[in-house]
C-alpha cells in the first residue's frame, strides 16, 4: 500500500474522490481495515493448515521436496481401494439420501411454508444433520447391534437373527446404511428451498391446459428441480466423502476408507515416517471435494438463472 490508488480503482463504498493520495489511502484503510481481523483469523486457522497439507504432500520425511508420497498413494492398492470405497460409499449414500430426503422434503413442503409438519421437520433436520458420527454409530448399534432393539425384536418374533453375520454393521453395507441416515436430514434442509421455488401458478397453468400430475412433473416440475437435485446430490456426496467420526466409531479393525486412513497415518499407528503420506491422502481428498463443490456452485448458478 505504498502508491496511491488511481481514482478509477477506488472501491465503490468510498465516495467521491477529493484531496490527494493521502486521503485516498485513508479512505481505503477506513473501508477495508475492519475486515482485517476476519481475514487474519481465517488465514491462520484455515489457509495456513491447508497450505501445510499441500506443501507437506510434496515433501519427504526429512523435509526435502519429493513426489514419493504421491507415488505411494497412487501405487499402493490399499490406498487406491480406499478411494474407490470412499467414492462408492459416498455415491450410494448420496443417491439414497437424495431420493428419500427429496421425497420427505416434498411431503413436508406440500403443507405450505407455515405448516406444522414442516416446522417440526425443519427443526428435526437441523439437529439430525449435526447428529455427530459417534452418537449416530451408537444409535445404530443400539438398533441393529448384537443386543440391539431391532435385532432382539426380530429374533424373538420372527426368529431371524440379524447379528448372525455380526460383522455386517461394521463393514461397507452397514456404513452405507448409517451414512444414508444422516444424508436424509441434510437433503431436506438443502432441497426445501428448491421445492419452495415451485410456484403454485405453474401447476395450475399446467392443469388448466389439460395436463395431468404426470405431465406436470415430466415437463415442468422435474426439469426445474433437476439442477437443484443434482446439486444436492453433489453436496451430499462431498458430505459423505469427508466424514470421519461415524466410521471411526463403527469400524474397529482396518481402515477401509480414506478418512480413516488419514486418521491412521496421523496417530502414527502405522510405520513412523508415513505422516506425509497422510498429507498426500489429504491432498487427494481436497481435490475430490473441491471438484465436486465447483460443480455444485456451477449448477446453482444455472438453476437460479431460470428462476429470476
Amino acid at each position, binding site marked *: 500500500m505504498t502508491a496511491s490508488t488511481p481514482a478509477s480503482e477506488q472501491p465503490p463504498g468510498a465516495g467521491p474522490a477529493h484531496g490527494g493520495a493521502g486521503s485516498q489511502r485513508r479512505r481505503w484503510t477506513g473501508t477495508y481495515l475492519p475486515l482485517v481481523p476476519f481475514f487474519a483469523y481465517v488465514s491462520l486457522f484455515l489457509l495456513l493448515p491447508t497450505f501445510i497439507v499441500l506443501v507437506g504432500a510434496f515433501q519427504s520425511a526429512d523435509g526435502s521436496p519429493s513426489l514419493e508420497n504421491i507415488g505411494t498413494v497412487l501405487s499402493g492398492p490399499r490406498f487406491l481401494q480406499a478411494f474407490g470405497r470412499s467414492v462408492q460409499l459416498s455415491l450410494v449414500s448420496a443417491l439414497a439420501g437424495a431420493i428419500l430426503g427429496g421425497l420427505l422434503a416434498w411431503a413436508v413442503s406440500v403443507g405450505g411454508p407455515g405448516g406444522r409438519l414442516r416446522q417440526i421437520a425443519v427443526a428435526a433436520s437441523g439437529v439430525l444433520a449435526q447428529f455427530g458420527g459417534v452418537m449416530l454409530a451408537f444409535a445404530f448399534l443400539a438398533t441393529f447391534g448384537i443386543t440391539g432393539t431391532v435385532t432382539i425384536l426380530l429374533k424373538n418374533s420372527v426368529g431371524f437373527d440379524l447379528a448372525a453375520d455380526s460383522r455386517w454393521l461394521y463393514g461397507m453395507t452397514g456404513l452405507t446404511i448409517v451414512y444414508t441416515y444422516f444424508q436424509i436430514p441434510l437433503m431436506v434442509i438443502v432441497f426445501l428451498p428448491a421445492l419452495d421455488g415451485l410456484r403454485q401458478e*405453474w401447476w*395450475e*397453468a399446467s392443469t*388448466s*391446459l389439460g*395436463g395431468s400430475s404426470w405431465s406436470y412433473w415430466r415437463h415442468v416440475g422435474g*426439469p426445474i428441480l433437476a439442477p437443484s437435485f443434482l446439486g444436492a446430490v453433489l453436496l451430499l456426496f462431498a458430505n459423505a466423502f469427508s466424514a470421519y467420526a461415524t466410521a471411526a466409531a463403527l469400524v474397529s479393525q482396518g481402515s477401509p476408507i480414506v478418512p480413516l486412513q488419514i486418521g491412521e497415518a496421523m496417530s502414527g499407528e502405522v510405520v513412523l515416517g508415513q505422516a506425509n503420506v497422510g498429507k498426500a491422502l489429504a491432498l487427494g481428498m481436497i481435490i475430490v471435494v473441491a471438484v465436486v463443490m465447483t460443480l455444485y456452485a456451477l449448477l446453482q448458478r444455472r438453476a437460479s438463472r431460470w428462476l429470476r
Partner: protein
Amino acid sequence: MSLSPAVSAHEGRSGVSVQLAGLHRHYGPVHALDGLDLEIAPGELVALLGPSGCGKTTALRALAGLDTPDAGRIVVDGRDITEVPANHRDMGMVFQAYSLFPNMTARDNVAYGLRLRGMDGQARRRRADEMLELVGLLAQGTRYPYQLSGGQQQRIALARALAIEPKVLLLDEPLSALDAKVRRQLRDEIRRIQISVGTTTLFVTHDQEEALALGDRVGVMSSGRLEQIAAPTELYERPRTAFVAEFVGLTNKIRGVAQGGAVEVFGTRLPLLDGSATSGPVFALVRPEAVRLTPEEGAAARVLAVSFLGSVCRVQVELPGRELVGAQTSPEDAMQLSPGTAVRVEVQAAGIFAVEDGGTARP
C-alpha cells in the same frame, strides 16, 4: 337455462355460453361465495369487479375447476361441468404473474397445451407461431421467460391460453402486476384479440377503470355476491346499490333530507334513483363531474386545493359544516378557482342515489 335478453344480443359472435348458478364456497366462517348467479353470453367479455375478498377470484377459479364449490352448478355450452376436473374443462387461463414455465422458451410455453393434446411437432410449431403472431411476439419465440418483460410475459401467457382454442378464456387480474403505461396498452390489446377470436371471456379485476374499459358487461361483487351486473355506462349512471355507487367511479357523500321520491342537495331538488333510501336524513351520492362551482363573493364554501390531472382538474371544496366535496372541472374553468376562492356549489344530475345517514354500503 334460457338467457336473459341483455345477454343474447351477443348471439352473433362465436363462442359458448356460461352459467354459474347458486355457487357457494366458504372457508370456515368466511363466505367467499354466497349464492353467486352469473350468465355470460357466447363471445361476451364479462368483467368481475370488486375489492379484495369479494369473491371474484374464487368465482373464476370455481369456473376453472381449480376450486370446488360447496354448492351450486356450473354449465358451459349447455353441459353441466360442475364435477369435471380442471384438466378436462378445455379452458384457457391467464394468471396475475409468474405463470409461464421458466424452463421453456416462449414458443414451447405456447405449444405446451398442444403437445398435451398429442399434436405433432410441425403442426404444434405452426400453431404456436400463429399465436405468437397474434400477440405480436413472433420474434421473441426463442426467448426464455426471464428474458422477457412483464408485459411480454403476459402476452405469451395469453397466446398459450388461446392456442388450445378454449371454450372459455379466464383472466385473473392479468394486468395488476404491470406498471401503469404497459397496463393500458396491454388492456386494449387483450380486448382487440378477444374480439377477433370471439372466445367467451371472464375477466377479474379490482381496478374499476380497467373493468369499465374492457367489459361488454361489468359485474360488481361484494362479500361473495353479485351486487349488479350491467353495461359500463348503466353501472356508472344508474347504480343499483350504494356499494356499486361508491365503488365505481369517485363519489361524494352529501348530507340531505329525502322526501317524496327526491332529495334536496345544495338547494336543488333531485329525483332519487331506484333502491335509494326514500325518507329521512340521508347521504346523497354525487359524482364530481355533477358538481358545479361558480366563484361568488361572500359565498359560504371555499376552494381548498386544485389538482391538475391532464384533461381535467379535481377541485376540493370546503363547505360551511367542514364537509369536503370533490368537483371536476376543465383546466380553463379551474383557473378561476385558486385556493381560498369563495364559490357557490350546485349539483346538476338526472338522478341521485341516496343512502341512510349513518349507514354505508350493503342494503
